[in-house]
């Protein structure tokens, strides 16, 4: 039985408080009027104060204009109004990216957990309680994401441009999509998906605990069937979720493999967090039967799914770059123009780094190697979501500053607090899982 250590609890609460201050700071600093917004941008440029800055400013202005044109002039308002909207969006987008990122970690873990159950994997049952602990974050994380979506629907922010009736009224493309992209249906879909994911998580957890106390394998078999069924639901719902929650911030753009791409991102982040939490718990002596072969297997998944993510990232990028069709290439034009470093930096973090560090079979067994790679992978996939949301909501006015870091710290604190609290409620090793002996003697 794991007891939530006081130091970790205090650390997570401190993270939440610091993060909350950062989030509030972000909202306070956001401009309220056009004059303030112009002043902010002017003072920012003044800080650089050389020919380079002026040149860059000129280039981005032109770019901004091009983007606005590509968007089909959905804004009747001036550039100044556009700038104000983007700056006002920044704290919201920072909050949304961090909220979704941590939610997607627990959703990725849930998918991994369901796969382990449906595949009747022999190595992983020792880690089921760790995975169940991490998926406990689905409830608070899902509610927070839903509330942010609800606030968007209530016009508290401009994250989703298609929710603005005045914009839709002047945009034939958005009118054409209104049958799918309308606020009511959007919220109903989100509610169904969250109910399905949370429902499976709670039911499977209940069966998993009941299996420990029962004298036959009926709970285990039922869990197997439920998990297989859930995977079908998950595949469909995750795909639609990625269109709704991520792709629709750029409602003029579409990509068919986007669902898979977001799935790969959440899957590898989830597996990384499983490995990191497992290593942490083992270092505290709470998982005596977990050996370095289990860590090796998790690291192998981190390695493989990182490459899978890169494959999808590149397939999406290369197909669009190659054909260069104006209505879909704008997505990458804005990203490469305004987000060059985060856009290509994340490929290095999510691909080169894990490939070179985790290729060696011996390194996959070394805890600090896995933790180090894990931190880079998680940061890289935060950047992935950042790159998906920010260019469409704040445009070239992005920066990783107080609102972004504050939101990450807050959700990191909440995540740590919630998952370790859930892990401390049950014994860390399942007792009557039919594969537990195989898992205890797992050796690679």
């Amino acid at each position: 039985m794991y007891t939530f250590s006081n130091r970790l609890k205090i650390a997570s609460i401190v993270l939440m408080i610091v993060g909350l201050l950062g989030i509030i700071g972000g909202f306070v600093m956001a401009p309220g009027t056009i004059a303030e917004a112009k002043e902010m941008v002017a003072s920012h440029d003044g800080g650089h104060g050389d020919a380079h800055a002026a040149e860059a400013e000129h280039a981005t202005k032109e770019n901004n204009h091009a983007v606005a044109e590509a968007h089909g002039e959905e804004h009747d308002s001036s550039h100044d109004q556009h700038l104000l909207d983007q700056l006002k969006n920044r704290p919201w987008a920072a909050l949304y990216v961090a909220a979704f990122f941590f939610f997607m970690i627990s959703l990725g873990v849930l998918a991994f957990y369901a796969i382990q159950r449906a595949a009747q994997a022999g190595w992983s049952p020792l880690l089921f309680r760790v995975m169940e602990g991490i998926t406990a974050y689905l409830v608070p994380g899902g509610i927070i994401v839903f509330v942010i979506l609800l606030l968007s629907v209530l016009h508290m922010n401009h994250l989703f441009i298609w929710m603005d009736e005045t914009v839709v009224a002047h945009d034939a493309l958005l009118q054409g999509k209104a049958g799918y992209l309308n606020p009511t249906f959007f919220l109903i879909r989100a509610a169904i998906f969250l109910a399905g994911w949370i429902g499976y998580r709670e039911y499977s957890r209940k069966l998993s605990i009941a299996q420990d106390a029962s004298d036959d394998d009926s709970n285990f078999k039922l869990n197997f069937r439920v998990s297989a069924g859930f995977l079908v639901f998950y595949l469909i719902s995750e795909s639609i979720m990625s269109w709704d929650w991520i792709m629709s911030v750029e409602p003029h753009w579409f990509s068919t493999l986007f669902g898979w791409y977001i799935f790969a991102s959440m899957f590898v982040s989830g597996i990384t967090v499983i490995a990191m939490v497992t290593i942490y718990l083992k270092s505290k002596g709470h998982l005596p039967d977990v050996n370095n072969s289990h860590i090796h297997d998790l690291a192998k998944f981190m390695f493989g799914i990182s490459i899978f993510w890169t494959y999808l990232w590149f397939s999406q990028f290369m197909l669009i770059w190659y054909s260069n069709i104006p209505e879909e290439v704008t997505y990458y034009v804005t990203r490469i123009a305004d987000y060059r470093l985060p856009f290509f930096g994340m490929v290095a973090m999510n691909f080169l780094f894990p490939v070179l560090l985790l290729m060696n079979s011996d390194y996959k067994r070394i805890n600090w190697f896995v933790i180090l790679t894990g931190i880079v992978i998680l940061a890289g996939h935060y950047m992935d979501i950042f790159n998906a949301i920010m260019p469409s909501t704040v445009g070239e006015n992005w920066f990783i500053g107080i609102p972004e870091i504050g939101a990450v710290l807050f959700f990191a604190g909440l995540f740590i607090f919630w998952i370790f609290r859930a892990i401390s409620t049950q014994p860390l090793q399942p007792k009557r899982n039919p594969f537990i002996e195989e898992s205890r003697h797992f050796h690679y």
Partner: protein
Amino acid sequence: MASKVIHAFYDDDDVLMLAVKRVRAAKFHIEEVFCPFPVHGLDKAMGLAPTRLAITAFLYGCVGITVATLMMNYIMIEDWPQDIGGKPSFSYLENMPAFVPIMFELTVFFAAHLMVITFYLRSRLWPFKEAENPDVRTTDDHFLMEIEIHDNEQELRDLLIDTGAVEINVSEKNSH
């Protein structure tokens, strides 16, 4: 120089594993073990050094990506930078996404094929090679442990019988 070897036959891989461990514990040098199929953990029990084949594969892959990059940089960018369907052929980096599939495939191609050839060379395998099989049964259902004799035939026999050998032969050393 000793020119005689003792061949101990086993009919079970678990018995063979225990025998290998006992023979090693008794400080006899095992020349070779012949098996009809891979016995998990036998290399560790015999104390064989781990293979470095994976390292060679990594290096061959590096060669492959270098070949692909140099080749396409020369052909598509330096030698004749044509405008083909508007693709930017001003520098390698600008046109790189189009080259990635080839870079990937050549990396895999070099890594896989050169590693296989390395494997054949190191384990001396080729089409008309004469088989080095001391007994045909080792390809079907028997395991054979070969130990060199240094005036200790009786001692070895006793030990091997004790480890569960089903048959023991002494023969001239096969100089392969």
